[in-house]
């Protein structure tokens, strides 16, 4: 491809005047050389770093080309649009080509720290997740370092047990939905240009959506009228007109207009859907709330109190239906809508689809359906709140009733299983422990009871035995008090030197990690698993030895404590080793050679 040279001005920002120079574009990079050789603003940028290019419209004030890179852009002003267009097309071609040849330049962002296992393809996104998780959680990082870096576990094995962590973060990435703006519609004021009587309202899809949500009557009218009876534009003109009339408090004019035009009247009338909704809500108000008692608490009835709207004081005009739309009502309605939030996700473009989607979302929980439950609940609540305690029986504590789906199956299957199991397990038990059969046992027991009858009660406890018991109990108490700590929340760990404590904690988490992998590898079906178990066993043996060392190395004061703590760890490891050995024996018993040639 050829190169092009064009005179241009480089502008650091749109506000500053440009620096004249020459822009030279080649296949790989573009170079800007200012005319003033002393200027330091010389550019040499590879196209790889450019993401998008933007440009001003043909015929606009300036012929601009903006090459955006991460974190900014290079703006060039050309003398003519034709020059600019040549450069623009050139850049477009190169960028298109670059994107086609290297689809993701993120390959190099995979750090050397985490090397994916062969055959495992990780998207850079996942990789970043993992790195972030490791960075945030030092414990995790330590385990990762300890096991993955030493090749005891592979990367994928390590993360396989932590899928939930990975999932969580992907959920968090989803975009937060924006709700309605909390500013009120009243803020969209009509703009007048002082010369004519023209009044301009400007409506955006966002505002329309908000109008629909806040004024169900308008919403309904829109669904009914548009586009059957009138065009969308006419509809909104009417709406704005009604709004204007209402705003100017011109009730006479409004009434006149409403009489002439029934569609316009819809907007001026009191919103009946809203009224219905409010009536429902009032019925659901806590029955113990006494609103009448609060009536005089707001000072509204006093002189010089009240709310100002649109410059004038809201006058209570009992004759006019319009005046009932008071500011506080509007405020309340707006607050309710904002709190409700957006129930659906629709591109705010086409008004019609927005209106329909809103209608659909409203249909879902209709008010009537849960009204019945509500009234029942209300009644119960009223009873509860107003009850006089000593006239009532005790409350029933809430409990979940026992629910057995099929009692016959439940009990029968258990019984059958239990008998079978008992038959197996007790045969040996009985022979060793119990020399008597049932009859003899009963006879012996009876003999004992009659013996007790005859001998009567004497010399229950020998004094030396009593002393032994007392000493034993006291020792037990003082030792548990010392070892388990005074309060139940006081940890034994806190008494240990911090170094030993840390060491123990580290080993404990390592053991857990290893054991989790160990047990999940059984049953061993492949040579891979066999190797994995072998690796894990090696690692566990090392930790086992380390634990023993810790036990020996601590000071004598803490030795007992530490051995108590280490004991369950060793037990867990012992169980794993025992399992390993028994599996191993089974394998050799089966005939030595394993399917994959592994045998021991």
């Amino acid at each position, binding site marked *: 491809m050829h190169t092009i040279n064009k005179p241009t001005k480089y502008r650091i920002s749109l506000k500053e005047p440009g620096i004249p120079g020459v822009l030279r574009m080649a296949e790989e990079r573009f170079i800007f050389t200012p005319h003033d050789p002393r200027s330091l603003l010389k550019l040499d940028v590879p196209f790889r770093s450019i993401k998008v290019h933007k440009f001003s419209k043909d015929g606009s004030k300036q012929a601009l080309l903006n090459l955006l890179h991460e974190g900014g852009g290079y703006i060039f002003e050309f003398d003519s649009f034709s020059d600019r267009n040549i450069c623009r097309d050139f850049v477009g071609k190169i960028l298109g080509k670059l994107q086609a040849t290297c689809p993701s330049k993120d390959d190099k962002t995979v750090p050397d720290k985490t090397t994916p296992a062969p055959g495992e393809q990780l998207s850079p996104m996942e990789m970043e997740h993992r790195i972030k998780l490791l960075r945030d959680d030092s414990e995790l990082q330590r385990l990762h370092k300890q096991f993955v870096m030493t090749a005891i576990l592979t990367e994928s094995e390590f993360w396989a047990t932590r899928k939930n962590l990975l999932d969580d973060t992907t959920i968090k990435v989803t975009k937060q939905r924006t709700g309605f703006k909390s500013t009120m519609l009243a803020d969209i004021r009509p703009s007048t240009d002082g010369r004519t009587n023209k009044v301009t309202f400007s409506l955006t899809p966002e505002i329309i959506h908000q109008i629909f949500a806040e004024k169900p009557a308008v919403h309904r009218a829109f669904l009914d009228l548009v586009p059957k009876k009138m065009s969308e534009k006419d509809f909104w003109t009417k709406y704005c007109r009604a709004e204007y009339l209402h705003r100017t408090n011109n009730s006479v004019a409004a009434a006149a207009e409403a009489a002439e035009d029934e569609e316009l009247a819809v907007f001026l009338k009191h919103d009946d859907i809203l009224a219905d909704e409010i009536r429902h809500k009032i019925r659901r108000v806590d029955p113990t709330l006494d609103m009448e008692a609060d009536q005089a608490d707001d000072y509204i009835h006093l002189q010089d109190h009240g709310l100002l709207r649109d410059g004038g004081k809201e006058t209570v005009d009992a004759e006019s239906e319009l005046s009932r739309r008071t500011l506080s009502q509007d405020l309340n309605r707006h607050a309710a809508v904002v709190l409700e939030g957006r129930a659906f996700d629709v591109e705010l473009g086409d008004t019609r689809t927005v209106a329909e989607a809103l209608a659909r979302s409203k249909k879902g929980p209709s008010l009537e359906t849960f009204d019945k439950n509500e009234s029942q609940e209300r009644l119960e609540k009223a009873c509860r709140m107003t009850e006089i305690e000593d006239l009532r029986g005790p409350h029933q504590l809430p409990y979940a009733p026992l629910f057995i789906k099929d009692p016959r199956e439940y009990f029968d299957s258990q019984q059958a299983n239990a008998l079978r199991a008992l038959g197996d397990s007790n045969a040996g038990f009985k022979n060793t422990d119990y020399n008597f059969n049932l009859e003899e046992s009963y006879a012996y027991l009876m003999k004992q*009871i009659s013996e007790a009858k005859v001998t009567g009660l004497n010399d229950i406890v020998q004094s030396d035995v009593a002393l032994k018991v007392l000493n034993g109990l006291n020792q037990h108490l003082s030792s548990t008090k010392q070892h388990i700590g005074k309060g139940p929340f006081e940890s034994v760990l806190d008494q240990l030197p911090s170094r030993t404590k840390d060491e123990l904690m580290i080993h404990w988490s390592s053991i857990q990690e290893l054991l989790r992998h160990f047990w999940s590898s059984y*049953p061993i079906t492949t040579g891979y698993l066999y190797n994995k178990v072998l690796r894990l066993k090696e690692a566990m043996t090392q930790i086992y030895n380390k634990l023993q060392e810790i036990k020996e190395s601590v000071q004598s004061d803490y030795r007992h404590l530490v051995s108590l703590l280490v004991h369950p760890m060793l037990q867990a490891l012992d169980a794993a080793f025992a399992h390993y050995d028994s599996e191993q024996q089974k394998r050799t018993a089966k005939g030595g050679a394993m399917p994959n040639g592994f045998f021991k």
Partner: protein
Amino acid sequence: MASAPSKLYSDDVSLVVVLLDANPFFWAAGAGGGNHPAATLPFAKFLDHVIPFLNSLLLMNQLNQVVLIATGINTCGYIYDSGNGGPEGSDNVSEISSEILLRLEEFVCKDRKIGKGTERAMGGSVSSLLSGSLSLALCYVQKVFRSGAIHPQPRILCLQASPDGPEQYVAVMNAIFSAQRSMVPIDSCVVGVQHSAFLQQASYITGGIYLKPPQLDGLFQYLAAVFATDLQSRNFLQLPKPAGVDFRASCFCHKKTIDMGYVCSVCLSIFCQHQRKCSTCGSEFNQAPREPNSASDTIRKA
């Protein structure tokens, strides 16, 4: 079931329900001598320790009440209730003792008679019906709760000898939870060979004391020093704490005590094998049990 309407206890009066293990197999095992606990402490001696303990409980407070329940292998039954005694009879220690022994004899006869008809005992079941006697005790406690606003503070003491019967797991756990709900502590004194996982859990959950006395011939002393204290005094005393609790559960299907198992995601029933359907709540588990290694397997092959 409604729980007790009010909990106005008089705080130093106790109702102690003692569960006595009268398992013939266990006690007869001591006849041959040897290391068995029943050899060091035969049933006659055991009673020698327990009956004076019951008497001393009654001595501690005039209003104290003691109930003795025997646990057999076929049945359970009330043996003695200090509240039932006539105004003149209950004072005499030897009378109480002979009453207990007489009723115990009757109980053992009854237990034997019931066992004859069924194959259960011969089938080899050697564990006592702990669940049954716990239920009897709880019923008694509930009756006391309903007797009036002021009643003694109840607690249950299990004198357990025979090993746990895993087949009773669900029943025992239910009894434990109902004791917890009605705030009745279950104390346990194990004189058998092994620790009892059931009673460890019972005492842990209900806030009672669990003790397995190492010195069996001093049983009375353990009973008097540890288990005689009423609930109010326990707040001020340092009583033995168990070093650990065996929390293992029995599976619902085969009644085996298990370390690892399957849990129904709906009702938390426990199974030792994978089930296609939960036998308790009927939920169906569609997915076949995932072999523990299958997930990692597929990842590796991919």
